[in-house]
């Protein structure tokens, strides 16, 4: 990453400024080095986020609020290679404007969650959109990452080419870790020609999002009908039925994790009242074997348990 220059980004208006986790003022940094230095020089737990569009998912984190939204700009863009690198806090709208000039798009059509999410937030949560079947999830399109581990070291993994098995695939392992393993500071991704976009409507999705509880359920596609049997609240489907969105009015939908697991799938509660998620969390419960492996991974990246402690699971 040394030597790469971030391009200037239009100045943000007040309305653009990141929502901040738990109401506190989050500290922002304009360079990965400064953020790494901050991690080294501090000792308390850190509540890490990007632009806050998914701040309502997971257990609330007790810690000093830090945002990556100050790490901005496209650092590498080779339209003819279909490869783009950007600092983690770069807004999707900025990326999409740059891509559109070359008739390119992001391959994972990330949902906006009512805001203008950062690239880092999309990768850290691995929540992609309609085109999962043809173009993959965010994790399928990550080529390389620069990141800060729990010891405050600024590290890199992966690279800038689409085929690369040089060492463990750490960029992919960081996808979907919700800032609990490392702080992503820069990400290199594949991009695709606009012509490969396959427009997919998800009828009913607006009604789902109008509900106080929203579940996102991934499951084998032949089991969507079993999940929806007797479900009278709003629902919507994507990915040929292998992604089901459920909207619910009350905590009556508390057993969705169990039902998803029984059907061979898994569920994430992506919208819920604060008091509910504070008590129940949002992430799919896991087997004891998987929990043990996750603790090993956490210990390898963040031995001091300082990054978003407890956001996904209490022991991580």
């Amino acid at each position, binding site marked *: 990453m*040394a*030597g790469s220059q971030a391009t200037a980004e239009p100045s943000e208006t007040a309305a653009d400024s990141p929502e901040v986790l738990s109401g506190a003022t989050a500290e922002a940094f304009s360079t990965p080095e400064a953020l790494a230095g901050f991690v080294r020089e501090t000792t308390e737990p850190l509540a890490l986020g990007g632009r806050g569009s998914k701040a309502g998912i997971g257990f609330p984190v007790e810690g000093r609020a830090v945002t990556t939204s100050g790490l901005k700009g496209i650092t590498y863009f*080779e339209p*003819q*290679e*279909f*490869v783009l*690198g950007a600092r983690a806090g770069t807004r999707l709208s900025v990326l999409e404007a740059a891509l559109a000039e070359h008739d390119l798009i992001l391959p994972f059509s990330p949902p906006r969650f009512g805001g203008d999410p950062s690239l880092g937030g999309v990768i850290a949560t691995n929540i992609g959109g309609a085109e999962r079947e043809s173009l993959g*999830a965010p*994790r*399928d399109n990550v080529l*390389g990452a620069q990141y800060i581990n729990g010891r405050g070291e600024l*590290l*890199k*993994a*992966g*690279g*800038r*080419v*689409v*085929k*690369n*098995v*040089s*060492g*463990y*695939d*750490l960029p*992919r*392992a*960081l*996808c*979907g*870790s919700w800032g609990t393993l490392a702080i992503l500071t*820069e990400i290199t991704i594949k991009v*695709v*020609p606009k*012509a*490969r976009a396959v427009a997919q409507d998800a009828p009913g999705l607006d009604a789902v999002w109008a509900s106080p509880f929203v579940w996102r359920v*991934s499951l*084998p*596609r032949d089991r969507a009908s079993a999940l929806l049997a007797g479900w009278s609240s709003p629902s919507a489907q994507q990915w040929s039925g*292998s*992604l089901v969105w459920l909207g619910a009015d009350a905590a009556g939908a508390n057993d969705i994790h169990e039902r998803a697991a029984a059907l*061979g*799938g*898994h569920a*994430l509660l992506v919208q819920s009242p604060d008091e509910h998620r504070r008590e129940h969390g949002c*992430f*799919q419960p*896991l087997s004891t*074997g*998987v929990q*043990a*492996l996750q603790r090993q*991974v956490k*210990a*390898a*990246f963040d031995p001091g348990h300082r990054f978003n402690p407890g956001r996904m*699971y209490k022991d991580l």
Partner: protein
Amino acid sequence: MLNLPSPRAEVLDRRQQIARDLRALLGRDDLLITSANELKGYETDGLACYRTVPMLAVLAEDTAQVAAVLRYCHDNEVPVMARGAGTSLAGGALPQQDTVVLGLSKMNEILEVCAENQTARVQAGVTNRNISTAVDDLGLFYAPDPSSQIACTIGGNVAMNSGGAHCLKYGVTTNHILGVTFVTMEGAVVEIGGEAFDLPGYDLLGLIVGAEGQLGVVTEVTVRLMPKPEAARPLLAGFDSALDAGACVAAIMATGRTPVAIEFMDRPAILACERFTGAGYPTDAQALLIIEVEGSEAEIEIELAFVEAMAREHGATSISVAEDIVSAENIWKGRKSAFGAIGQISPDYLCMDGTIPVTKLPDVLEQIYAIGDRYGFEIANIFHAGDGNMHPLIMYDSHQPGVLDRVEDCGAEILCVCVEAGGCITGEHGVGIEKRDHMPLMFSPEDLEQMKALKRGFDPKWLLNGGKVFPLTETGIPAGQIDPTQGLH
């Protein structure tokens, strides 16, 4: 020559006891291999210039046996290494003298196919090709297609995150694995992922796929299947220069109309393959592209016309299209037996695997030929050009004293060129032992230490497939040639 770790004398001393213990815990005699003659069958893999006869080998028949062997090795501090078909080109399946080889080739059953969900559950020892064969009549196939697919196993593919010619369109192994049964070094059996897309919690699949069998042993795999295209047809385009062919690849890719495969061969490779398989390659060409398009007949016609126009624009001297399935199969047979064909014209060869940005192809090719000339080695280039994954084959005769050192130096220089061009040291073969000492070209000591911290978490005693992926010694690259902290991120 690469340094290999010294065997632990204290383990070798316990060989007879370990054999007795393993026989007891397997409850059978026929699953344990102890004779020196039979153990020779496990001494090497596709990187045949390195050979080490292992201490013992176990041929596991089920997950419980794998767990029992791993638990025993963990408790008794015995090095152990899983092995599929032993086709690794990077020494990924090379044992050490004190290693128990855990062979998985007997676990070769396809357990379940679900056409509706387009998934299959298979044991780790099933060959890559047999998955596609088993689901062919459902109109489905398993997409990643390493050239060794007739022999290589899905377990090995998972370990190395294997690629193949058609990964240009479909992606590599990690994009097609939905779940695994994973056995830890302590012998715990953990189901990770399942049949659904993505997985809850950390992306343990992303971590395990491509970890070269160093974190645990995978015994069953749920793969994603893809609908077979209506039809596919390859086109052969011959060129007067390798640089023209490279420029043609870059130009096609830049349009975004990605063919399903673009394979490149230079003159030495064309001649060797044609002699070996009679695939109908143009023997007067300096370089050849195999470009495959797929879809309906109408789509194929349109895309073939586009590819042909691009090829002609870049100076193609001959163009021919496969007329029927037999000629299409012959064209691919020629390509997929390329390494065997080179073996017919050269006593030995070392296959490199660097990936570069496609736009740098002409420039990097020129540099590779110059490096070969300087060392006095003929280099044949056969590779997946569409995604920039190069396979320069350095031809040599191992009977010449000291030649392997020079071959490896030559290869190291080629990898330097790949990294300097913005690429990486291995695109699909893995690090193994072969590129172990070149990892500092791409990663700082701290970057590597983070990977090692994961390895220690899963295997604290460093017993599982050790001596690979991470450098044992300083890199052999001349100091100052490249700064390992620069380049990729």
